[in-house]
């Protein structure tokens, strides 16, 4: 059987060269890190906090529709910034080099139901280390959505679109339960005691956040209790839908789960880099879009260098793309509507039995397109 690397014409020597090039690129960026990056993330944190303060304050005037709407908008902005450009990236250790406890991956906690520690385990470790390996990377489908023809079909999968909608609305809770991972416990692959601890931590964290959003702040606004509660709930849903869209666009459009455990055993760093690039997809957009998506719109660069401050991905993207072209590795990028369209297409397609790809799925456009299709099919 040919491996994915062989199908791309990549020998061990070629992968070693790829490793050297990418390590050099990484070293160049790391050498540039400094006050500019710290100022940037602190400015965003300030914007996030002020928008939260502003949002909470305007809900005290929530009986006036413009203030209610402004409150929802400001709180949504605050939560999106917190989860994406600030939380996700700080928790990746992107700012650990600053030695600032407020920017430390071990000390940061975010405005999301999933406790930072639990998320770090399954996301930073399992997802980023075992990206794209069947059975090991659990981020694909989140255990509830069938997103690949490789996965066996059952009648339960008919609910795919419904599950996706539910997950989008409750995404932060979805992430929390994803860490608990009942599926693996049921399959006997994870001890219940471990899952129980995750569940306990998750419920405590999400309980505190729910108390804050649905009891405490509504109570502060007195007679506006219900109006504030509704605004808080809506802001959480807006954040959930937005992060669902961005995160599903990060891996789904390209077709995933391509590597077997055997071919990744004792793999070289070069092969690891190769695997990261294959499973990820970028989204094009303006500066504000990239900030709001936590620069996960540069998913390929993020997967290569998950611990480099995300604002630097834009800077290295042209070089990564050029390297991909030279090595014949697909570089999947497209505008949001196209990428998310392909995600929706897959969610509907794989609700039904069968392995064929939906028509609208965009295949990588690179010189070596044909072998990629062979492997994926």
């Amino acid at each position: 059987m040919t491996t994915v690397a062989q199908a791309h014409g990549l020998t061990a020597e070629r992968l070693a060269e790829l490793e050297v090039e990418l390590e050099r690129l990484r070293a160049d960026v790391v050498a540039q890190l400094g006050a500019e990056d710290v100022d940037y993330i602190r400015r965003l944190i300030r914007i996030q906090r002020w928008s939260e303060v502003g949002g909470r304050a305007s809900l005290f005037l929530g009986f006036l529709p413009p203030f209610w709407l402004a409150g929802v908008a400001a709180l949504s902005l605050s939560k999106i910034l917190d989860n994406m450009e600030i939380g996700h990236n700080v928790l990746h250790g992107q700012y650990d080099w600053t030695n600032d406890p407020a920017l430390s991956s071990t000390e940061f906690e975010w405005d999301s139901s999933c406790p930072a520690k639990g998320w770090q385990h399954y996301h930073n470790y399992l997802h980023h280390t075992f990206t794209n390996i069947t059975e090991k990377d659990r981020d694909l489908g989140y255990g509830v959505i069938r997103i690949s023809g490789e996965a066996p079909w059952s009648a339960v999968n008919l609910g795919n679109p419904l599950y996706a909608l539910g997950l989008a609305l409750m995404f932060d809770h979805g992430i929390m339960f994803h860490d608990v991972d009942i599926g693996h416990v049921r399959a006997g692959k994870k001890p219940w005691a471990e899952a129980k601890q995750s569940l306990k931590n998750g419920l405590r964290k999400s309980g505190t956040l729910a108390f804050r959003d649905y009891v405490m702040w509504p109570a502060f606004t007195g007679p506006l209790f219900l109006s504030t509660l509704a605004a808080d709930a809506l802001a959480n849903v807006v954040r959930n839908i937005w992060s669902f869209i961005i995160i599903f666009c990060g891996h789904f459009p390209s077709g995933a789960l391509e590597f077997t455990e055997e071919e990744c055993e004792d793999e070289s760093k070069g092969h690891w880099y190769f695997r990261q690039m294959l499973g990820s997809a970028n989204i094009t957009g303006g500066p504000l879009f990239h900030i709001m998506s936590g620069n996960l719109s540069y998913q390929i660069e993020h997967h290569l260098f998950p611990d480099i401050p995300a604002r630097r991905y834009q800077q290295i993207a042209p070089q990564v793309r050029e390297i991909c072209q030279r090595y014949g590795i697909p570089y999947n990028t497209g505008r949001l509507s196209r990428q998310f369209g392909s995600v929706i297409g897959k969610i509907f397609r794989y609700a039904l039995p069968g392995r064929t790809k939906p028509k609208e799925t965009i295949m990588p456009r690179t010189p070596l397109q044909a072998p990629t299709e062979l492997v994926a099919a």
Partner: protein
Amino acid sequence: MPSGAVSSRSRARRILGQAVRVFDVAATPYGIDRYVELVRPSWSSSEVRAKVVQVRRTTRRSVTLTLRPNGNWTGFRAGQHTQLSVEINGVRQTRCYSMTNAATDRNGLIELSITAHPEGRVSQHLHQSMQKGQTVGLTTAQGAFTLPLGEPDHLLLVSGGSGITPVMSMLRTRCALGWEKPVTFLHYALTESDMLYRDELSELARSHPGVRVVRVFTDQPGAGDLDGFLSAHHLDSAAPGWADAEAFVCGPSSLMDAARSLFGRIGRGDHLHTEAFTLTQVTAEAGLIDGTVRFGASEIGRPSDGTPLLIQAEAAGLTPLSGCRMGICHTCTRRLCAGVVRDVVTGDLTAGPDVNIRICISVPVGDVEIDL
């Protein structure tokens, strides 16, 4: 102070503390501090921070800072130090400095004197760029090198170079307390112009009974009261009867070694107190595996075997969080409390105290301590 005032103040503090806790829930998950600091950067409900209120450059290589710490500062005993944190090009750096003012001061201010060392990136930065109005991070006062609570019959304070700082605080405190028993202040500087607190020391010797100041300028023979380095002869002439003194010595290791041997020889080792001012050896030889690894939080120490700290921690029976074991996931990030480590991927050296390291790819270079 009337006791009523004290109890009403402590009640106010308690109520404030409870209010802070309520707001902490409202401000979950960040806590109230993260909002208050938007408008008052030096305020914090738990961290010690201080505002720079005065900057003086008294010698060519030194800067004296007067700081106003926030309410989390709990005072200090003469001789103690604090860990000062500043940011240099976005990276927070932490170094230890002794308070130099009298511990009896009630004006809420502390003073630190920093000497710029040619190899010291942090001290040079402090020397060049500290300005009035800046906010710095501190810790509460630390250290057991402190002036005795009761007045000793004979106090001997010996210092070399920037080691003058803790004993300066001891002398100032002693004078402020109105102690009158003899104290000898023996200081070694390179040259007269390098000597910190030169004028003030002369003034203290003049105006306070029992204070004797003896200066030695090691690069300027003939300019001081004595020549050369610490010896029995120096002690005999500077502090007759030194064999009965309570001695406090701070300075380079050669000075402290000399003091240890002098006091050891007369069987008075337990009356000698020393404080090392260690320059972190960033230049430590890479590949050096001799040394011990201390897991501070677990109080375990073991000789280093030259493997990454994660491996060594596991070998010591600890089970630190870890993930990818290749430096990408940051699950194993820990604080390096002291010492130097080498990154096995890049070969870069990182020196403590208080920096984040990924223990899966960090090999100790010499003695290290990590928060594990």
